[in-house]
């Protein structure tokens, strides 16, 4: 279903502006969508577990700052180190959620403020420029001349996580946790570990999205990714993953992220005025969710 929404949107944009459907233009969309895809992919795991992660965008912002700060000293090593640090921060939030028994909404809401503050302090409230971007530049390359490397990497991340989840007991564990945490726990499922793991992967994804952003912007900034939070959550839900947990998949979020990107970028480019752009965005996103949600799997809509 999210695919139908995606195709429908492309067709509509093409009708509005025939120039929109060009190879270059679609390539640009996929490149643009890459950080959002990665961000949404990580957070999807948490949503599948029945939680939510509001800190991904702030964590990505912080990661851009850290990467920009560390690139001169660590060079190529900076990328994996930043991803690892982001994963660790995610895991700390997961631990707080699991051990202190605070709802994930609150933990990550607090995390969002704290990480933003840390980013501001670490960066001195300013942009950190990357002078030598040779070690992150590879993300700006094009595979086979057409596919942007960042889009290919985003696809790889989604495929990798989805494959690992599907091929291991993780799928059962995550779904069980999302559908019915108490039943999962009584079945001896490592619910706490699964949740912490989901937060950890979500953190790592935020870190990787940050690497993509830095390679695109040649700098890191304490608020750089902040505005990607709601689009990322929208991408997950538009993809048809139930926000109550259990039902959904990373592939759906991939399609959802593309839909959201088309809305964010496509509408103004085909010439929709700013005020109507927002109205259309609101209407389309609601309709897209209505189309993609599998009602048979979700009994009560809250």
């Amino acid at each position: 279903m999210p695919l139908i929404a995606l195709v429908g949107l492309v067709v509509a944009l093409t009708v509005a502006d025939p120039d929109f459907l060009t190879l270059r233009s679609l390539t640009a969309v996929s490149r643009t969508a890459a950080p959002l895809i990665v961000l949404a992919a990580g957070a999807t795991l948490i949503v599948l577990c029945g939680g939510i992660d509001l800190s991904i965008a702030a964590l990505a912002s912080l990661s851009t700052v850290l990467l920009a700060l560390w690139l001169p000293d660590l060079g190529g090593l900076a990328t994996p180190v930043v991803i690892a640090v982001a994963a660790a921060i995610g895991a700390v939030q997961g631990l707080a959620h699991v051990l202190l028994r605070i709802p994930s909404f609150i933990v990550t809401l607090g995390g969002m403020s704290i990480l933003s503050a840390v980013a501001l302090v670490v960066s001195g409230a300013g942009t950190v420029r990357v002078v030598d971007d040779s070690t992150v530049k590879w993300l700006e390359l094009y595979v086979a001349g057409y596919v942007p490397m960042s889009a290919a990497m985003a696809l790889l991340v989604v495929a990798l996580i989805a494959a690992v989840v599907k091929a291991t007991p993780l799928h059962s564990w995550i779904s069980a946790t999302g559908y019915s945490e108490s039943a999962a726990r009584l079945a001896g499922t490592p619910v706490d570990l699964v949740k912490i793991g989901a937060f950890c992967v979500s953190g790592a994804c935020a870190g990787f999205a940050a690497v993509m952003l830095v390679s695109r912007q040649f700098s890191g900034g304490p608020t750089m990714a902040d505005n990607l939070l709601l689009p990322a959550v929208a991408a997950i839900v538009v993809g048809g993953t139930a926000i109550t947990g259990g039902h959904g998949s990373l592939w759906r979020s991939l399609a959802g992220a593309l839909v959201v990107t088309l809305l964010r970028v496509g509408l103004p480019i085909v010439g929709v005025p700013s005020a109507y752009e927002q109205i259309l965005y609101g209407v389309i996103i609601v309709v897209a969710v209505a189309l993609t949600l599998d009602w048979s799997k979700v009994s009560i809509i809250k």
Partner: protein
Amino acid sequence: MRIAIRPAAVLMTLSLAAAALAGCSEEAAGDKDPAGAGACKPADVKLVGQVRNESNPYEASWLAGGDAFAKSVGLTQQRLTYGGDSTKQQEQISQLLAGDTKCLVMNVLPNGDSDTAPIVKGADKAGAFLVTQWNKPADLKPADYKTWISHITYNGVESGKQIGDALAKSIGGSGGIIALQGVLDTAAAKDRFAGLQASLKENAGVQLLDQQTANFSRAEALTVTKTLLTKHGDKVKGIWAANDDMALGALEALQQAGKSGKVAVVGIDAVPDAVTAVQNGTMTATVSSDGTWQGGIGLAIGFCAATGKLQVKDIAADNRAFYAEQFLITKDNAAQFAQPKTDPADFDCANVFKRVAGPLK
């Protein structure tokens, strides 16, 4: 069927494909040759103005100025707004540059310093004519690029100092003031605050009691000012705000605290409401920055370059990155600025650099 094969297959195909595709390139294939300077017919030029949003007076007047210029040359301006969202700005620019860029002219307000570099590099690669305003890192220079014609800004240090001095004068050279900072992560906010600090050095009697950010926002300024007024009470003689929106918020806070008229307020930008306030004496001073002109001039410079009336290589180095003229507006001269006047002649290709106040330092 719940099979683990499918994603695995995708993964394998993907890695195989990656292996098969021997080389990676820096460019998407099917790239066109960059536009030669000035080969465009006026009717083929595509004018784009990009600002944060249409919902504040300053940027709305910017877009209106752009529309007016476009109309004067028989074109329309494509308005883009990114809602103060850096990533969205980049996304729009890269989408725009993925279209037809041959005669593209962009007049862009980068969200922050860091956003300028990717816009410039993208435009340079695609051969689109670009004028940026307000934000750019110091070491990124238009002179190093072919189609980045110019960067226009106002001298924030100077305006911060000018209003600081005006404030000091109006409170009689001594007393406590509070400062409302802008979005901490922008050059404008930092420069303007640096200007205040310079002013404080010269006016030893003036004491900075407190400084807080209100993120250039009228609503936040209202709350922060209320709190600071309570904290420092009658010690507060003046309020320095990094823009007029915050100054107007501070005015409301003063009114609500019953201190209307007892505390001097200064701001920057000369938005109409602030000019009116200066005119009727509730505000002490503001500094002009002319949104209507900025919206028009960026497109005008680009249009002249695209149509060949202006050769980029001929533009004086000082005009590739410059401070625009600005004026301190006080009660004495406020009437002059009450109706922003933009002279169509300013946009003639011969006059586009008329308002240069000096090269960027």
